[in-house]
């Protein structure tokens, strides 16, 4: 019912900025879908185009099997939660929640009781008669969500709803949002620039850059197998190691050491190719002593992340590699170690265009997963 179909959608602003560029996308009914990207990547424009607040330059847009490309916002049957919540300051909480029903011409008594019901479900019962300015940020956000829910749309559009909350509240609201979507089961498109938020919430993520989707996949896919260097650099709380390497005799030459060629890349590269080795700090093992596999170097910095340590190792040729080690297993600063990327997790990107080498998906190797639990 609430599925979305986007075909070669393009939006060019009057000032010539190409915010969305020939974009194709399908979102399934009931899906929690995240549009992720840095500012200016077109994600908010795409959301506003879905809402009908921007008219696309070309392309088509279907919501629930109906072509809405040229429809004004109202008949599209979507609800949007704005970054600043857009709660009307002159209305009480219950009137704010009931406003969409008023537009739908629901009788006054019915819409008030319905708004009160939705508000109560979201834990707002004690503040229904207050005004938005008297509420905290988290409460305002819940009022905005309640207003969207009371409208019972086919599609929720959320524009960075957590970015105005402080860090502690944001985690709480994130869990709340996920639970809410599980209950309501309405298709949700969620715009964020915070990769952790997208990974935590979404069923699928589209990582955008320059008006195009650079990768589309589940949080697991996007995290474990970024399709290109842009996504690789963008996803992950810890920055992925992206190390310049040369293919030499079936192995990779990195920072003066040899690292085995990851199995997914085997057969796709030739001797002498310039590549980038991608290895998440979480998917790299620190081994003591100078001899053996891995990139040899000295421990330069140790950072305590709470349950683990982030080790920064300086290898030859000015290469630095980071890896995490469990608490109590950390080496000392200045110690000679080797950092060995876990073979099944290591990725190889072409240096020329930054695309991932080896098109087929990695075989989910249980042994490799067990070796280092993924985040």
């Amino acid at each position: 019912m609430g599925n979305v179909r986007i075909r070669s959608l393009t939006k060019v602003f009057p000032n010539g900025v190409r915010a969305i560029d020939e974009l194709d996308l399908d979102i399934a009914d009931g899906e929690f879908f995240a549009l992720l990207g840095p500012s200016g990547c077109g994600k908010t424009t795409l959301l506003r185009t879905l809402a009908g607040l921007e008219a696309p330059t070309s392309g088509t847009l279907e919501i629930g099997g109906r072509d809405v490309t040229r429809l004004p916002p109202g008949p599209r049957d979507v609800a949007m939660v704005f970054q600043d919540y857009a709660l009307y300051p002159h209305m009480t909480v219950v009137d704010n929640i009931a406003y969409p029903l008023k537009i739908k011409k629901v009788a006054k008594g019915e819409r008030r009781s319905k708004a009160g019901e939705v508000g109560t479900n979201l834990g707002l019962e004690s503040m229904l008669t207050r005004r938005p300015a008297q509420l905290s940020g988290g409460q305002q956000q819940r009022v905005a969500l309640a207003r969207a829910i009371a409208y019972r749309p086919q599609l929720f559009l959320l524009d960075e709803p957590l970015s105005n909350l402080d860090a502690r509240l944001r985690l709480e609201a994130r869990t709340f949002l996920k639970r809410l979507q599980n209950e309501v089961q309405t298709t949700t498109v969620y715009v964020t620039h915070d990769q952790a938020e997208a990974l935590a919430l979404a069923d699928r993520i589209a990582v955008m850059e320059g008006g195009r989707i650079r990768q589309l996949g589940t949080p697991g896919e996007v995290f474990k197998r970024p399709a290109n260097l842009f996504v690789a650099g963008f996803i992950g709380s810890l920055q992925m190691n992206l190390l310049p390497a040369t293919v030499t005799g079936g192995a990779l030459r990195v920072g003066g050491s040899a690292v085995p060629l990851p199995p997914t890349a085997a057969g796709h590269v030739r001797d002498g190719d310039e590549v980038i080795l991608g290895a998440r700090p979480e998917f790299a093992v620190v081994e003591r002593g100078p001899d053996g596999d891995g990139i040899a170097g000295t421990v330069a910095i140790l950072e305590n992340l709470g349950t683990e340590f982030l080790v920064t190792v300086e290898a030859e040729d000015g290469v630095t590699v980071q890896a995490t080690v469990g608490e109590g297993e950390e080496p000392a600063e200045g110690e000679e170690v080797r950092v060995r990327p876990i073979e099944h997790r290591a990725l190889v990107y072409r240096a020329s265009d930054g695309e991932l080498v080896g098109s087929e998906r990695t075989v989910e190797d249980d042994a490799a997963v067990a070796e280092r639990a993924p985040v």
Partner: protein
Amino acid sequence: MTAPALPRSSTDGEGMFLVRAVLARIGFYVFAVVVGAFFALPLAWLVLAPFDKNPTLSVQVPSPTLGNFRDVFRDPYAWPSLRNSIVLALGTMAIVVLLAAFASYALSRVRIPGRNVLLYVLLLFSSIVTGSAAMVPLFLLVFDLGLINSYVGVVLVLAGGLLPAAIFILKDFMDGLPRSYEESARVFGASSFQVLRDVVAPVARPGFAVIAVWAIVNVWGNFLIPFILLRDPSRQPAAVVVYNFYTEGGQANLRLLSAFSLLYSIPVVVMYLFVNRRYGFRFHGGIKR
């Protein structure tokens, strides 16, 4: 511990500094009192003279009476002139607020090339070039329209003069209202009219109130335009009638003048207090950012 022999001159320096600071302070207060007195004296006259049997142009302790006010009520033009002022002020205010509201909203939300140039040119011509300079053409215009000696003529001219500045001020206010209010209402299916009525107008209300009061105060105090456009003394507003309070001897009738001046200033003062209390003359409408 041997305290380093801090030079005594440093304490002397501090003393000097203190004396200088005290003198500066005293000087400042003397200056402030002089300036304050300069502005307070006319006000004191305005408050005291109406209750004085024999008011002069100096501030003096009154020999109390309410007779001056009785004279005002007896004067054939004084009391009706206040009503005329109210009619002109409310009429002008209604036109200015209504038109400025629509114009400023449109100018704030729709991108037209040369929008700002248009606004500045309007503002320049209305506020700086008009007044005495435009009086002759305005008079001829109103005369040709057959609106001399009518409220409509005065209201139109006054509204025309106030509108550009009103639009300019309100547009700034509208620019400050987040668009997300309107957009969220539109996404919920509200029509343009519903958006204006339910969201924009209530949120912009403090701006409207400020413009309304500003327009009323401007009309209330305007002498030149009604003086030129209204011939019939029974239609003239308070600001013009006050000009005609002479005794038979050709002297300014201070008894009438002082009492009438007080009555004439009360509505403006009350309105200022009301707006200041309600909206504080701040340009935001409960919008927390």
